[in-house]
């Protein structure tokens, strides 16, 4: 497992419960929508459904698929005190219209919107993009079990 200097590891945000395999070849928007649905119960009581969907849709316009074919839609909320994430694995994948890149893994990341947390937020983005390299995505796409996927990522 790769750790950043502030000690935040992926095991803190990725567990079998927040890994979802998405069948078929959904559009990017549909994939993000499915991850947002999955995220909703995790932030229940902190962020309302509309606020969550609206904010994710808003920031989604600014987010870009990485060269590695990994996608990290992310948003910050002042109501949160820690990271929340849902990982989507799409074995068939979809092609991002903006970059032409094939996307087979994406993670919806919610972070606290607090100045003191911004460095950790950036570290997490960096750690995710460092971890989800094409080789790992290939392996994840070959799996079918969220627990196995989480174990592969976190090294447990």
């Amino acid at each position, binding site marked *: 497992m790769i750790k950043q200097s502030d000690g935040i590891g992926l095991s803190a945000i990725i567990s079998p419960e927040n890994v979802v395999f998405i069948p078929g070849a959904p559009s990017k928007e549909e994939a993000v929508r499915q991850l947002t649905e999955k995220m909703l119960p995790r932030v229940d009581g902190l962020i309302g459904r509309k606020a969550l969907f609206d904010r994710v849709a808003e920031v989604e316009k600014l987010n870009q698929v990485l060269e*590695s074919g990994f996608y990290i839609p992310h948003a910050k909320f002042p109501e949160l005190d820690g990271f929340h994430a849902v990982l989507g694995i799409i074995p068939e994948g979809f092609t991002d219209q903006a970059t032409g890149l094939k996307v087979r893994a994406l993670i919806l990341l919610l972070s606290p919107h607090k100045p003191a947390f*911004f460095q950790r937020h950036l570290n997490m983005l*960096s750690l995710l993009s460092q971890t989800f390299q094409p080789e790992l995505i290939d392996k994840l796409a070959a799996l079918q079990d969220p627990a196995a996927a989480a174990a592969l990522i976190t090294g447990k």
Partner: protein
Amino acid sequence: MVPASKFKQVFVLSTAMLSFISFWKAAAIVLCDFGSSAYYSGGIAMKAYGPAFPWFVLGVMLFAGVMLAVYVESCSMFVRGGVYVVVRHAMGKFLAKIAVSALVFDYVLTGPISAVTAGLYISYLAKSLLEMAGMHFPFSPNMLAVVFGVAVIAYFWKENIKGVKESGDTNVRIVLFVAAIAAVLLVWSFITIYVRGFTLPPFKLEFSPEALGWSKHISWLQPIGMIGIFMAFGHSILALSGLESMAQVYREIEDPKVPNLKRTAIIVFIFSVLFTGVLTFLSSLIIPAELVAGEYSENLLSGLALHLHGPYLARLALQILVVISGGLILMGAVNTSFVGANGILNRVAEDGILHDWFRKLHPKYGTTSRIITMVAALQIVIIILSRGNIFLLGQAYAFGVLWSLVFDTLSLVVLRFKETEMEREFMFPLNISVKRYQVPVGLISVLVVLLITGVLNLITKPIATVAGLVFTAVFFTIFQVSEKMNEKKAQLYKPDEDKDEELNLRREADIHTVVPELTKARRVLVPVRNPNNLHHLAEVLETADDETTDIIVLSAKIAKGIQSGGETMSDEDKEVFSAVVLLAEKYGKTVKPIFVFSNDPFYSMAQVAQAAGVDEIVMGVSGSTGAEVQMERLAMAWGMLKKPDEAAKPVLARVVWEGRQMTYQLS
């Protein structure tokens, strides 16, 4: 890690190295032009108004200090200055075209007068050596000087066509050698005076009929009193040629620019006073007056060497060294005449007042060969017409020198009233504060001196007046017609794409080939995109230590598709580079501009930063996304490219905008 070959490559399309020179090198470049007049100004002045010449040559050299201060003020206002830019800002294009025509006349004549003088020094030396060997060939030194001058012009024409640039290091070596010879001459001259004693030259003006020109026919204009002094001053003013070189070299001077420019001016001043002023003076004390006017009028410093106290062979050896030093510095001046004239004409062409025909690049060497050939042809014609007569050339030369100085000084006076808010790190002394104006009493005094001298020169130097006015009129007409043609063209077609300064670009296949060129201990990456948003680059340039820091300026262009190699830079891309170059020139600090094609600017930013091992990344704020999103994208790109087991080198990322900044430690 993302394998680079699998994704769109970052193409390093082009790089351009901007380096800056020390004040020593800058002084050497100026002196190769300015200092060369020591070899001919004394003889020309003697022939014009007699034995008082050393007083006036020394006086002109002291006045050079005043004019250097004038140039320091103009340079502190315009990094890419010079007569044309200063006059255009102060009084508009019309007068700027006249001023630059006079300046081109000055540069064009620098070649012939320098080449012929070098030829004369060599001819007289050859004559002495042949006579010493008992061989008496009836040859004319002037004709030999013509042949030599034409050959020198042809040589530098060829070199400039090939694009051989002036080397600051070569200039330093030449000036050091000349300085060493000058030091020997000075010391030996003082020993000679100590042994023989001396009589100060009379302050008596004895104008030759040629030196009075049309004033002979003006009864009230007698060469006596102050009028006589100004006339004599006008006959010596050609020794000021080369000051414009300081304006041309200013853009290349390293940080801190203005203090280094002042140091340059001080070195040029001291060298000129000692070399041209004092040595000319000493020549008049040591060489018998009749020989100064006769045998040594065209090779005064050779005469000085031969008339020193000591064994003949030692004096002859010194004469040979004087001729070699003269040959080197005078040929340096010939090259400067090509570089200067070409540079000035290219500068005005960028402003649309010279037709594109002149700027057509040489198919093989990429130089503006038509301008260079035109300058060479004019110089050769002038040398042939002069028949090696250095006095004739000197008369004509003074026209361009003097009137370009008049225009420059007048413009500075005008700018004191027109541009009151403009930043001036240096002001010519003697100013009186009146409301928001700094009334330039000192500058106005200098202008009055130059104007009186200029007007008297018009009367006393008929050949210079006619030749100078004809030349100026011809060039002014070329500029006028070119401007009209360019305006017409601009209406018919889209804006000229070739008006920008030629950028020294090269294409590289990979960023890693550029990395070995980064040699300093600390490296800062400054991504740029918008030529109007370079605040962050200015901040870096202001604070970075040029000695220890490589500043890599990265411009990334979005190019779709996975892999290609045929991308070319557009005008907009070049505009960013030009703005970067201008800013680097302003601060006098070295930058390494790199242009890449990528489908993600943050990806290319991270790739270049990691390949170059930078310590800091400084971004300007993006108006469309904002600083936070920029940091997020950089963090993701950074992580994506980071090798898993690589030792973490702390890299500070900053987004800088007016009065604020956001920082992030990349790890």
